[in-house]
Each structure stands twice: as C-alpha cells, then as structure tokens.
C-alpha cells in the first residue's frame, strides 16, 4: 500500500515554504519507485520541483528553480561557442599547459572529416563562433583546410603560439579567410623574461614576430596572456605594450593560470566552478577547454550528433546549478 499521507505531507510542508525554498518529505511505507512517481506527479501538477529522492526522503523545491541558462549572458550560453582541439602535440612545452602539450605528446588529431562535420552541424545548432585550439594547430599539414571548413560556416578563431609562420605554414596562413578568421596568439608579458621562463627561450621574440606577420597580412589578432592569479592585477605595462603592437583593447585577453595539465599551481577550476564551453577533442566532448585532457570533465565520448552533445552539456549545467543552489540553501551559517 502506498503511503496515503504522502501527498498530504507534501501539500503541508511545501505550502509552508517560501518560493524556491526546499523541504524534505519522508516517503513513508511502500515501494520507492511508486512513491517517487507519486511525488513526481504531484510536483508536475502543482508547479513544484522534485530535486531528488535519497534514502527514501524526497527533497522538493517550492516552485521551479530559475533557469540557469536564461540567467547567463547570451555569449556565455553553453554551445554558443564551440571549441575544437585540432591536435594535442606542440612545438613548445609550456610549464603550465592545461592540455599537457609538448613535442612528445601524441597528436590525437581531430581530423578534417570530423572538423568539417562539426562545423556543418554547428551551423544548424545555434553555435555562433568556432574556436580551433591545440596543441599547436600550425603543426598540422592540413590546417588551412580545417580552417576553411570552419570559416565557410561561421566566424572562427584560431589559437596559436604564432611561432611557425614560415615556409609552407606561412603559405597555409595566407590561404585563410581574413574576413572570417581571427588569430589568437599567446603572449604572456611585455618583455621576454616572464614569457620565455614558462614557454622556452626565444619564444617571446618569435611570438611578437608572428603577431606582426599576421597583422601585416591583414589578419585580426587577439593576444592572450596566461598569468598567475596574483599577477593579473598588474597589467598596465603589458596593455601599454599591446597597444604599441596595435592590438585593440577588446582583443587583449588575460587569463589566470589554472591548476590543470602540467601546471603545478594556479586557480582550481572544478566542474562546479566553470560555466561550460562545449569542447570537442578526438577523445570526446569536454566541459571546458581548460580541462580537455582531464577525465573528470569528460561529458561523453559521443561527439555526434553535435546537437546532442550540446544538449547534454546544458542539461548537466542545469543539474549542477540546481545541486549547488540546494547546497547553498542548506549550508548553515552557524
């Protein structure tokens, strides 16, 4: 027999709670599945939300939790930007690389066929921008074909260390669509010392040269710096330097160093702390580009169809926000 008082308890306890507050209601006697179905049905009829059933106790929210997707700025909605790791190998071995990239890292290339299909499906899935990253994408012999597959569909940004713009790689760069492509080149400081300390001797000079090459050939260039969190407030000299390079203020991107990959320190970026940005690698779909080499933020191995992958990331984000909201309401102040 199903506990006949269950619905009475729900009405009484939820009714005495403020909007968006949660209450717990023991299921009482009867099969868990049947009683859970009763709570689910009652919540659906009355406009409330079953948060969870654990240890035969239902947690119910009065009203429905706010839609965390609707609360985000439009450009932060998961799936608005699609990140693709074209490869994981790199000509550098930066000591803070979140993707553990280096010359010895296996390539794990996404490949032209998958990039082409992802770009096509992105165009149908309300994605507004494609972002290609690595590793160092210019190590790929077909990087210009990958970029062309993307720029044919959506505005695209290509992340690079800017050090390889010579010979056939420069030729590949020059074949890219300047009207649809922005280059984001990594540069960590206004002078070579700090940059070279993390990224290798001589890398600052070559990166600055790469920025100038790209600019001279008509490309929009963003510069992204990765700095220890404690240094992210002393940026005036760096911005002044970037101004002299002709980098627009809005294209000067500063990122705090994350404790991910080979970095031995940095800010902790857990799944709960990150608004997801759908990220595709050869290995699957990840929560965020900073964690594309970390199983704790692997969402699914199934890259296709892309719309399902985006829906899965959004669904998990909604669940995660609901859990954190519930925890915030429960956590006692004293």
């Amino acid at each position, binding site marked *: 027999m*199903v506990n006949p008082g269950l619905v*009475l308890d729900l*009405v009484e306890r939820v009714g005495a709670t*403020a*909007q968006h507050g949660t209450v717990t209601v023991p299921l009482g006697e009867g099969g868990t599945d049947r009683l859970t179905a009763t709570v689910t049905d009652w919540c659906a009829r009355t406009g409330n939300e079953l948060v969870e059933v654990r240890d035969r106790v239902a947690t119910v929210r009065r009203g429905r939790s706010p839609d965390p997707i609707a609360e985000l700025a439009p450009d932060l909605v998961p799936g608005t930007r699609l990140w693709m790791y074209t490869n994981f190998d790199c000509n550098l071995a930066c000591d803070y690389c979140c993707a553990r990239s280096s010359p010895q890292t296996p390539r794990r290339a996404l490949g032209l066929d998958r990039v082409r299909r992802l770009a096509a499906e992105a165009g149908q899935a309300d994605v507004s921008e494609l972002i290609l990253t690595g590793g160092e994408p210019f190590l790929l012999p077909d990087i210009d074909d990958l970029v062309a597959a993307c720029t044919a569909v959506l505005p695209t940004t290509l992340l690079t260390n800017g050090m390889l713009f010579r010979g056939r790689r420069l030729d590949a760069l020059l074949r890219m669509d300047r009207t649809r492509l922005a280059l984001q080149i990594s540069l960590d400081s206004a002078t070579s010392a700090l940059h070279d300390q993390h990224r290798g001797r001589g890398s600052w000079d070559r990166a600055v040269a790469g920025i100038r090459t790209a600019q001279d050939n008509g490309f929009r260039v963003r510069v992204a710096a990765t700095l220890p969190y404690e240094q992210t407030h002393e940026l005036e000299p760096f911005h002044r330097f970037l101004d002299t390079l002709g980098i627009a203020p809005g294209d000067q991107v500063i990122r705090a160093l994350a404790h991910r990959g080979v970095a031995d320190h940095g800010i902790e970026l857990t799944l709960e702390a990150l608004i997801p940005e759908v990220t595709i690698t050869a290995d699957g779909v990840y929560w965020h580009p900073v964690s594309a080499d970390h199983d704790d933020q692997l969402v699914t191995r199934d890259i296709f169809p892309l719309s399902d992958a985006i829906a899965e990331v959004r669904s998990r984000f909604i669940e995660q926000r609901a859990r954190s909201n519930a925890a915030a309401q429960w956590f006692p102040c004293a």
Partner: protein
Amino acid sequence: MSKPLMVGAVAYTPNVVTIWEGIRDYFADTVAEMDFVLFSHYGRQVDALLDGMIDVAWNTNLAWVRTVAQTDGNCRALAMRDTDAVFQTVVVARSGSNLEGLDSLKGRRLALGSRDSAQAAILPVYYLDHSGPGADAVDLVRIDSDVGKHGDTGRSELDALRMVLDDRADAAALGINTWESIGREELMPGTFEAVWSSPTYSHCNFTVLPAVSEERTAPWLDLLFAMDWDNPEHRPILEMEGLRRWVPPVLDGYTSLFDAVEEQGISPRW
C-alpha cells in the same frame, strides 16, 4: 504623484511576501503605484482597513462579510481571482466508502476545518442544513488549527483528511483548492473520493471603504485586470496567487455565506 495605494494581505505562508513583492513591482513606475502591509490574521487586517491604515484589503469571503457587517454595507469589492468566482466545498471520504451526497453523512463523523474557514466549516454546516440531513444529524469533528487565517493555510483541511485516513472521521470537508492540491482522486488512487460538491460561491476579493475614491482605485484596477497569463513576466505571480486572470467581483456568490453567518450566529467581529 499621489500616494501609493496601500494594500493589506494576511501572511499565511512565507510565499505571500514573494507574491506581493511581485505585484508591487508590477505596479511600480505606473500611475497606480502600490505597496503592501502584511497582517497576522484577518481580524487585524479589517481593523486596519476600518482605521484607514490601509486603503485596500485582500479579504477572504468571511472577512468581506464581516467588513460589510461592520460598515453597514458601506464598502466596495473591487476585484477577485477567476478562481474566487467559482469556489466550492468538497466532501471527501475513503475510496469505496459508498457514501454519496450529503444525506449519506447522516450519523457519520464529518471532519471540519478551522471554525473561521468558510469553505471547510461554515458553509459545510450551512449546506448540511439546507441541502442535507441537517448539521445536528451529523457527528461534526472540528479541527481548529490556524484560527484567524480563515482556512488559508489549508492545514486544518489536511488534518481533517488525516483523520479520515486514521478512521477517526468518515469524511472531511475541504475547499476545492485543497482537493486540487492533493490531486483529487488521481494522485493517490484508491485513497480518497469526492462524496459531494457544493454549488459555486465567491471567495476572496479586494475590499475598499468609501474614503478611497473610485478615482484612486480605477487606474489600479485597470492595471490589475491587464495582468496577462501569457506574459512571462506576469505569469509567475498569477501562478503563485492561484489564478489565470483577475475578474470583477461576483457579489451574488456571497449570499450563502451571509446567510450562514447569520444562521450560525457567527460574530461580525473577532
């Protein structure tokens, strides 16, 4: 700019704050700004209306009847929820009880809600007298929880249902809103069934005294009636307050309660 219209409401649940903040925000920056004052029970609210502390009282049907009695009818009802115009009392028994209609309650135990609840106590007695075997022919079990809030919390009705479950009563009298909130017969099949439903009657309304002119209330009413279920900004407030649209008051719907209050000797004051 004129002073904001002060609306009184009874805080029978914490959600009342959310509801009235939402309604206040809806009127903000309009020609009919309002604010609200919450009271612990309807007696205090109607006293505040009579004292001029508030301009409008969001009254239950019993609070309306008592306001009419204390002002000799010198008060106006401005509006009500669509659900207030078709309120009902439902008598509920255990499934399979074979009870049907008010006459089947003769000699049975009927659990009533708080004595100041029109839907769960006053009108059930009225209908037993006028459409059933008479209240004296039924063993009335009264549950006076949350007196002062006129049954708004629904707690006494839930307690009445628990008495039926525990076989301490054969049937319980509920407002249609409580019957809906437990999912009628559908959510717990085999548990409860409706034995009888009353004719429709009126429940809450916004009440004002003559001191508050129609010139002041008309713009406010125009905006109130303009709240739109299909507008996503208005919808949450309407859902929480339990209506789809605000409607003009149906005054005929209070006749049964006026008669019941007189017949049962219920005080016009508190």
